[in-house]
């Protein structure tokens, strides 16, 4: 409410460097800031996955450089199991929160949602700026969580907050997994290495991130409902906007639950409450209440944390992938030069996925000892998500059917998204059945499944979006030659990494273990583990080609015009890059649906949304107009 009200859109173009590029109110700058944050975070998460792969495939090898950076995590250059678990935790946390949640929604959504609906900015630009900086603060805190235990002097920085905030014990970062399961995550130092001060900062970082996401979601919903330009009815919006809107609704309804749970967990850790801690707990050789380091706890339930976490955690999966689905639909239609097949069905499928996403959290908890009757209910609801997902896949294929496809890099990544979404989704039908999941839950098949469908598919959606919109954002193409190299190596690479994990999982290889050499029945799988690691190293190396391509293209890329892809939506109506208020003072008027390609009788093979009928001779036979 403390926004400056009527004046929000009169904010003039800023002139100083700080107002223009750092504390900017411009949704386009904020969007790019989110993308930069995601590019930085994904680098951290990717290096962590590299370290994990090195450990898994060549255990016992001495890596002197590791000892330089992590003297306690890797004494003598050998990675400790705790250090490995800490890598698992921080890789998951950073990737899910600071990459998969920031770039698709905060990044591309922020930049393109207002332009695509014909608005001059977000509804509340100050909130928008705060949402980015709060998220950035969360990122700093999560990085701090890694180092707080390692160094004596850093460990004292927040000692004033209480004894549980004192770090520097020489152990490694948080090891609770990205899910931070109670009760171990709720107990503090007594639970062992990696559960001390770093875990406090992990919880605090998640809570901060929740606040930032809520501010963003609020802005997205209000902007979309309130600020569409003349003629932009809901059913004329590009599918990207539908995806961002649904994502914002999911974030709005799921992050408060995680925030509430996070506060309770933090209170358990620092204020002596027992929300998630049952009575009579025996941990690290101590009984609750028998020792001053382990005060008496009673009455709480650790399963409750799982319920709260997964009530957020499952919608979070869709928060990560829905924007990718939107971008894929948009890009497939543009480069197939055909209207999207079944626009309305696509909109309803997005909503159906979002809605069902709220009723399936229990499928993450089949092995928590839940009643088999609940498990069946969760199982049926989970499998029913296959229906809208299949509708989407069918419509993507329908869009491609008989098309003269333009194989740009953006298109390749969008096709890759469809491929990965199907390949990753199929194993969801296996894991969604409680009877099968009981056996497979803690194995690598789960790792393979969610990395393909939630991780890599979402990332491919983002790659497609970046290659597609880069010319609009920076006025230059993102190098197509390097882009295609990047696509093919990454596409083949991720299949080589994650497909073998399905086989390992069925063979019984447990996830989260730092070493498998001790297990006789897994020895035969070791060549496969090495193969996955080699594929991962090659794929990761290729991403540096991508980083180079981005930086090189911003300055030296081929120049792009206002509408280089011959696309139809409003962002291609304005200049490249768009002016401060997006449309130089004159909001466009929308006359038609978003995907009017190959209209019979029209002079060109595309009609832009803002082209008036008078400007389109013979434009009588559009598709998809049923308003």
């Amino acid at each position: 409410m403390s926004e400056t009200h009527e004046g929000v859109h009169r904010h003039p173009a800023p002139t100083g460097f700080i107002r223009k590029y750092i504390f900017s109110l411009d949704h386009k700058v904020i969007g790019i800031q989110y993308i930069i944050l995601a590019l930085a975070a994904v680098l951290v998460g990717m290096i962590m996955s590299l370290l994990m792969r090195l450990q898994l495939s060549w255990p016992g090898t001495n890596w002197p450089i590791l000892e330089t950076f992590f003297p306690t995590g890797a004494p003598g250059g050998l990675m400790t199991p705790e250090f490995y678990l800490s890598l698992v935790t921080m890789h998951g946390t950073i990737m899910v929160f600071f990459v998969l949640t920031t770039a698709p929604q905060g990044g591309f959504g922020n930049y393109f949602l207002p332009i695509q609906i014909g608005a001059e900015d977000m509804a509340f630009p100050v909130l928008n700026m705060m949402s980015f900086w709060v998220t950035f603060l969360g990122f700093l805190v999560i990085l701090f969580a890694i180092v707080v235990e390692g160094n004596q002097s850093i460990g004292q920085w927040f000692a004033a907050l209480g004894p549980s905030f004192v770090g520097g014990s020489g152990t490694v970062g948080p090891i609770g997994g990205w899910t931070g399961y109670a009760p171990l995550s709720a107990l503090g130092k007594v639970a062992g290495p990696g559960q001390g001060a770093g875990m406090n900062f992990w919880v605090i970082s998640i809570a901060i991130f929740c606040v930032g996401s809520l501010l963003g979601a609020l802005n997205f919903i209000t902007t979309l409902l309130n600020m569409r330009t003349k003629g932009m009815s809901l059913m004329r919006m590009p599918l990207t906007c539908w995806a961002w809107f649904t994502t914002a609704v999911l974030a709005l309804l799921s992050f408060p639950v995680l925030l509430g749970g996070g506060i309770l967990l933090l209170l358990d850790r620092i204020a002596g409450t027992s929300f998630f801690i049952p009575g009579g707990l025996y941990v690290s050789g101590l009984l609750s209440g028998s020792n001053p380091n382990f005060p008496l706890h009673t009455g709480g339930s650790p399963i409750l944390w799982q319920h709260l976490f997964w009530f957020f955690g499952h919608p979070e999966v869709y928060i990560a992938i829905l924007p990718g689905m939107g971008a894929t639909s948009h890009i497939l239609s543009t480069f197939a030069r055909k209207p999207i097949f079944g626009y309305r069905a696509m909109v309803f499928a997005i909503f159906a996925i979002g809605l069902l996403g709220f009723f399936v959290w229990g499928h993450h908890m089949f092995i928590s000892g839940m009643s088999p009757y609940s498990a069946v209910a969760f199982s049926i609801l989970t499998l029913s998500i296959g229906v809208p997902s299949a509708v989407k896949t069918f419509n993507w294929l329908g869009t491609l059917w008989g098309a003269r496809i333009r194989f740009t890099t953006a298109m390749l990544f969008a096709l890759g998204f469809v491929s990965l979404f199907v390949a990753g989704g199929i194993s969801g039908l296996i894991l969604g059945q409680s009877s099968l999941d009981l056996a497979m839950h803690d194995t690598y098949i789960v790792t393979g499944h969610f990395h393909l469908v939630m991780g890599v598919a979402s990332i491919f959606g983002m790659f497609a979006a970046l290659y597609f919109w880069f010319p609009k954002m920076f006025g230059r193409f993102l190098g197509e030659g390097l882009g295609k190299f990047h696509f093919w190596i990454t596409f083949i690479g991720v299949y080589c990494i994650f497909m073998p994990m399905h086989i390992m999982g069925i063979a019984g290889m447990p996830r989260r273990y730092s070493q498998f050499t001790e297990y006789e029945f897994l020895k035969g799988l070791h060549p496969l583990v090495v193969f996955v690691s080699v594929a991962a190293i090659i794929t990761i190396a290729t991403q540096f080609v991508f980083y180079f391509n981005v930086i090189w293209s911003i300055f030296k890329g081929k120049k792009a015009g206002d509408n280089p892809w011959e696309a139809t939506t409003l962002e291609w109506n304005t200049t490249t890059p768009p002016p401060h208020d997006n449309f130089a003072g004159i909001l466009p008027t929308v006359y038609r649906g978003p995907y009017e390609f190959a209209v019979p009788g029209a002079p060109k093979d595309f009609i832009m949304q803002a082209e008036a009928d008078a400007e389109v001779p013979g434009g009588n036979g559009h598709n998809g107009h049923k308003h």
Partner: protein
Amino acid sequence: MLRYQAVMATMVTSTKTVTKKGAGSGAKFPGPNGKKPGGNGWHGDDGSKRKFSPARYRITMWVVLAAIIMMFAALSGVYIMSTHGEQRIAMPHMFFASTGIIIISSWTLTRAKRSLQFEQSRRYVSWLLVTLVLGLAFLTSQLIGWRELKDAGVYFAGQPHSSFFYFFTAVHGAHLIGGIILLVFLLVRSKTNILKPETEKRNTWTAVVALYWHAMGAIWVWLFLLLLLLK
């Protein structure tokens, strides 16, 4: 297009209040290839981008409330699912009083809103002040309730049931402080800019703040009943 620009140009300098076209999910469109694009019901048919939009604030408040209600729903879920042990905790007497206070404050804020609709600005200010005082009284009574709990040997640390007495009141109180800040904002706005034609803004903001305040009242009544009846 030219006509559109001309309308825009007049709108920028105009100070007249523009009547809002209502806030449905969008007006009907002409058929395919309709001659006129028509408004979508949100942005107004004149395409003005600089006028005050009451719908924006109403939507935002509903969205904020949706998030807040989700959080309290989750916390209530934890409370309902927790095991409540042997300790019988008597509801502090002050919590009965605070429940009454917050219900009355909702009524006084409604009075303020009504006064505004009849353009009785002095009454509006008085009812706002009464609501503000009741809000502060509510917070005070909650704090006294904490003392009662403490005297009865119910502490924050311990089993979930006793923790929740403090936790619910604290989280709800934090949100109510937000409501008090909004009331102060309304009071400040009622003093300044009195000559400007901002009736619509004042009506909108009062309605939005009232919505928040009623929601906070309803949430407290829910939490109170939960603590009272489910032991």
